[in-house]
């Protein structure tokens, strides 16, 4: 990705409105949000989400006004977050929430793919190495044969080099999203502080 591409994508992320969130799908090479994403569905608040594999059916209690963070996902090792949707959510807050949800899904997808392909390729490598030696996958006692660290090192090197470009693209995208999310969080925090200050000024009885 060239510098201009990076800058253009970053400004697009910052400037896009609520309805333009789908544009994010085309950014980077790995975006494909999970179909059960509920970021734009206000009805999902307080409802039980459909229990697709890998999706939690947990719903935060109705009286909670904070986000909830769950256990690490089985595939991606990332922790899902259930975002709280406040009653009077501003467009900025909505954009932030959707961006965070989308980034979470994108991250989950990347790392799930990464972990699955790593373990599959590792198994394949072990199998082919053993086959070359004329050994079966399991030894006489039924235990799975493993290769030595030096033999596995060849696989690790190959895997890392093969995924270099993929990681490079992912890193750029991740840094961009991280900065954007933090920037929006800063704006939302200022907005909330301003709102609180403005509300207090309007109602001096509360001082």
């Amino acid at each position, binding site marked *: 990705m060239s510098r201009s591409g990076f800058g253009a994508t970053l400004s697009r992320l910052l400037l896009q409105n609520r309805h333009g969130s789908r544009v994010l799908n085309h950014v980077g090479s790995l975006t494909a949000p999970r179909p059960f994403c509920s970021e734009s569905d206000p009805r999902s608040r307080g409802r039980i989400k459909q229990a697709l594999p890998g999706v939690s059916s947990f719903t935060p209690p109705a009286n909670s006004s904070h986000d909830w963070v769950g256990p690490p996902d089985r595939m991606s090792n990332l922790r899902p977050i259930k975002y709280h949707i406040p009653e009077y959510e501003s467009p900025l807050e909505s954009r932030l929430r959707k961006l965070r949800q989308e980034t979470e899904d994108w991250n989950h997808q990347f790392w799930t793919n990464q972990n*699955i392909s790593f373990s599959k390729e590792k198994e394949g490598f072990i199998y082919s190495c053993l086959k070359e030696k004329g050994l079966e996958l399991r030894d006489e006692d039924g235990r799975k044969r493993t290769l030595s660290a030096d033999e596995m090192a060849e696989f690790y090197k190959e895997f*890392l080099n093969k995924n270099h470009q993929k990681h490079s693209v992912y890193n750029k995208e991740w840094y961009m999203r991280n900065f954007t999310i933090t920037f929006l969080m800063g704006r939302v925090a200022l907005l909330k502080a301003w709102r609180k200050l403005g509300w207090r000024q309007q109602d001096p009885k509360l001082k």
Partner: protein
Amino acid sequence: MYNSPCRKLTGLVGVSILQSLENAAQARLCSWDLVQLCRSSTSKWITFQHCNFLKRQYVTKTTEACQRAKPKQEALTTPLVKQHPHLQDETVIRQVQQISAIDQHPSSVQSSKETPTQDTERASSDEDPSTAQETRQWKEIKVMLGDLPGIYARLSKIRLTALVVMTASAGYAMAPVPFDPSCFLLASLGTGLASCAANSINQYFEVPFDSNMNRTKNRPLVRGQISPLHAVSFAAACAVPGITLLALTVNPLTGALGALNLFLYTCCYTPLKRLSITNTWVGAVVGAIPPVMGWTAATGSLDVGALLLGGILYSWQFPHFNALSWNLREDYSRGGYRMMSVTHPALCRRVALRHSLALIGLSVLAPALDVTSWTFPLISLPINLYISYLGYSFYRDADRSSARKLFFCSLWHLPMLLLLMLTCKNHGWTRKTDPWLTV
């Protein structure tokens, strides 16, 4: 400065270093923690707990290095009770521990050993307990004031920061000027704050990568205990006072070095880890700067002595980190970290050996530059020869055990070397240049 597997002081040697420095209670507390930690740990855990001091922790238990990369249907990996250098029975142990893992984590995926019929029966009967278990694992993201110190300590990698401050203190103590306690404390505080900021930013950048590595998965941002904005604000709240303190109350040179180190660590080293193996060299520079900062805080100028101390720390990083990274190759490969140990293994071993030998050379250079007396190269020769020997074994054998030996040697080698250096400090130089001193 902050990240590398360098700067690990063993408890006992750390205490002796502190005794030789005219130091504040802050360092004593840290040493007490170290000693307590070593004493309270069992032999199995000493290696793991010990490495908690380091950013790059040395995973000596193989399955701990195997963060769950597989779908849940496959074997779970739990820490090995016993470890073997060449793990032949990994799968057997994994299967054995599957049973214990299932007992410990009833909500986790069913073992692949179960039959499909058992699966369906278990699924229907275990659904409620597993859902309940999972529900319990969800936590509200609400920051309680009482939790903040613990969170900030982990965010700033307080133990690593303490070790960085110690190397800076050693730099200050080695400088051939009268000891000024207030300047010393301000320099230490400023360095500590800058280190906290750098470590926080590092964690802020690396959330998804940390989630996928066993040794880093309990960090505050990974666990969702605080938001990214909070982490960045904390980093800013440490960096600004820290660098300002160094620049205004110590001297501008030290402030500039602190800012440079912060930049190098957060904006060069952290991204480079995923792009190129040159990250190790950048990280070595980052580790070398704190003692230089300590020296410049004392003298106000970048003397050859400062550069020598920096050079010793720089050279030390390589046997230390290269040995550590040798046994983490799987994690690095899966996580996308570009390290010499994975991409250029021969270079990794060569560089480790080269720099172990360089430590001998630098120790000889110390008296030549009037930093220490000529006793220093003599008394440091045994430990320098030993680490070089281990470096050579690592170069020749390139296996887990030689890597481990070299790594653990580096842990005590550095504090010992600094201690010996302090005892051989060239006080005569001070007297010659400053006749008003009555040392």
